[in-house]
């Protein structure tokens, strides 16, 4: 088997047995990534000779270009940070390196993680590996496409409203968004701080489990990271899974494209045949999930992106006064989607409207969170398709923001309530990948990953090529 076909954990074992070297592994993936026509990477790293033992020994990682890797460019897919060099490692990167993980490069993304198609990157769109005329999803589209195209075995992304899971589904790979606070956000460039979470994309659940157990856990540099213990996920997942009860929220998924709905129905039948129980659940506030998410995400984004002023780092456009420098820098530095979100975010936080929009959304968020927690007391997991439609054509939704936002209709609730969720590749429809999403209880990645691992093995959803 060729090196690029190996899973991350297999690479580590082969290196430990002396069958292949770290350098051979790096070169194989580097060759594949540098000759890719999908525009997956913004920057590729150079090989550095430093052999390290550890749980991730020699495994190359693709890192979304909003997670800082010391000494490498960190553009966030934006002109405003086109030449920004990261002065330190994000906590997750520090932990990856400590366990022998190797950085292969920084992956392309929608500007500041705002988008669901990767078309909003200042460095050009990423193409879907299954059809280059279609989008890979977003905003971690570079990470998902790189993993699917065997350019890297594992990649990190960030997920604010589905940005790891939706591209994973569009590219036919696994994508996990852990519980909010599970992985430190120190060194992740902020988009919407109460929703952002680093996630993991891979071709097998075992690689996700292995990566999570290395990078998760409390970090004094992120006051929202949790002191919850981190179990050895990669071992635990191999234990028996038992039979689970899965809740299908019918009012949420009713607007889905028919081809996805049919494939989802067949998936539920397979799950039943495997002995799991499928029940209907009611989520009365489902139609409010997306608008609630958008208000909160845009408000927090407008506040977080106020730091890009041309004064301390990033692009600087000169002018006659301080104000002119700041305004011109932001005008030239930000793309249309980022400007759109900053404007709406500024509006919903402005005097006279704050309570009407932002305050209201935060209160509805409480209701949504309680509704989901209540549902998860009745069932083990909530199951839905990951996205309501198949990967769409480049340009199809780019000019219509609301049409683009609908990509996240099934994914935002996990961020609003802070819950862990994984997108599992469901196979192909007309040659294009689709995925289904399993959402679990807060801090229970253990059961979620175990379930996904057993489905991968028994349900026929393995990606072994």
């Amino acid at each position, binding site marked *: 088997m060729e090196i690029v076909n190996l899973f991350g954990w297999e690479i580590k074992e082969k290196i430990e047995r002396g069958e292949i070297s770290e350098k051979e592994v790096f070169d194989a993936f580097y060759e594949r990534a540098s000759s890719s026509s999908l525009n997956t990477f913004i920057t590729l790293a150079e090989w550095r000779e430093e052999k390290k033992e550890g749980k991730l020994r020699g495994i190359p990682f693709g890192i979304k270009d909003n997670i800082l890797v010391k000494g490498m460019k960190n553009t966030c897919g934006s002109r405003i940070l086109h030449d920004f060099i990261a002065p330190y490692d994000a906590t997750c990167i520090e932990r990856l390196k400590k366990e022998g993980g190797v950085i292969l490069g920084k992956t392309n993304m929608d500007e500041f993680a705002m988008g669901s198609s990767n078309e909003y990157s200042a460095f050009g769109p990423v193409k879907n590996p299954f059809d280059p005329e279609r989008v890979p999803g977003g905003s971690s589209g570079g990470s998902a496409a790189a993993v699917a195209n065997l350019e890297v075995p594992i990649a990190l992304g960030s997920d604010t409203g589905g940005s790891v899971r939706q591209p994973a589904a569009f590219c036919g790979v696994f994508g996990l968004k852990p519980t909010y606070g599970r992985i430190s956000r120190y060194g992740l460039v902020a988009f919407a701080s109460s929703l952002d979470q680093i996630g993991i994309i891979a071709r097998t659940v075992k690689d996700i489990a292995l990566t999570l157990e290395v990078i998760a856990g409390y970090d004094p540099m992120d006051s*929202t990271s949790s002191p919850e213990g981190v179990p050895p996920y990669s071992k635990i997942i191999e234990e028996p899974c038992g039979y689970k009860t899965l809740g299908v929220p019918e009012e949420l998924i009713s607007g889905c494209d028919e081809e996805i709905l049919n494939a989802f129905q067949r998936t539920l039948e397979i799950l039943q045949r495997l002995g799991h129980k499928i029940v209907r659940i009611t989520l009365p506030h489902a139609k409010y999930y997306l608008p609630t998410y958008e208000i909160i995400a845009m408000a927090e984004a407008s506040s977080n992106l106020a730091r890009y002023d041309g004064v301390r780092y990033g692009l600087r456009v000169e002018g006659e006064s301080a104000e002119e420098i700041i305004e011109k820098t932001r005008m030239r530095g930000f793309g249309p989607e980022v400007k759109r979100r900053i404007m709406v975010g500024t509006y919903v936080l402005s005097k006279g409207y704050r309570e009407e929009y932002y305050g209201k959304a935060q209160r509805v968020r409480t209701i949504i969170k309680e509704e989901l927690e209540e549902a998860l007391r009745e069932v083990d997991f909530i199951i839905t398709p990951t996205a309501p439609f198949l990967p769409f054509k480049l340009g199809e939704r780019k000019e219509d923001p609301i049409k683009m936002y609908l990509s996240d209709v099934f994914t935002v609730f996990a961020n609003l309530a802070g819950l862990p969720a994984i997108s599992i590749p469901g196979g192909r429809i007309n040659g294009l990948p689709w995925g289904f999403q399993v959402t679990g209880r807060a801090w229970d990645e253990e059961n979620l990953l175990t379930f996904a691992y057993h489905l991968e093995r028994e349900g026929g959803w393995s990606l072994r090529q």
Partner: protein
Amino acid sequence: MIEKLEKLASLRLGEEERKKLLEDVKEILHWVEILKEVDTEGVLPTTHPFLSSLPLREDKPGVSLPDEEIFKNTKGRSGRFFKIRRPGWR
């Protein structure tokens, strides 16, 4: 409305851009109006999913990056300071 937002967000727009953006902003604001239907009387806001369970760290200064590292990405610098034009354009 849009001029006021431009000022608040320190973001100047071109003429064409302003027209398109105004339409988009109005459409998005109209789309989220639906939240007004939800009865939130007496409901507390959620600012972070699990804020109440998080410990505070000790209020002690830590080690910061050296100046030279910080200034590596800076375009205008004067000694230990960031350099910018004086305010007063408006």
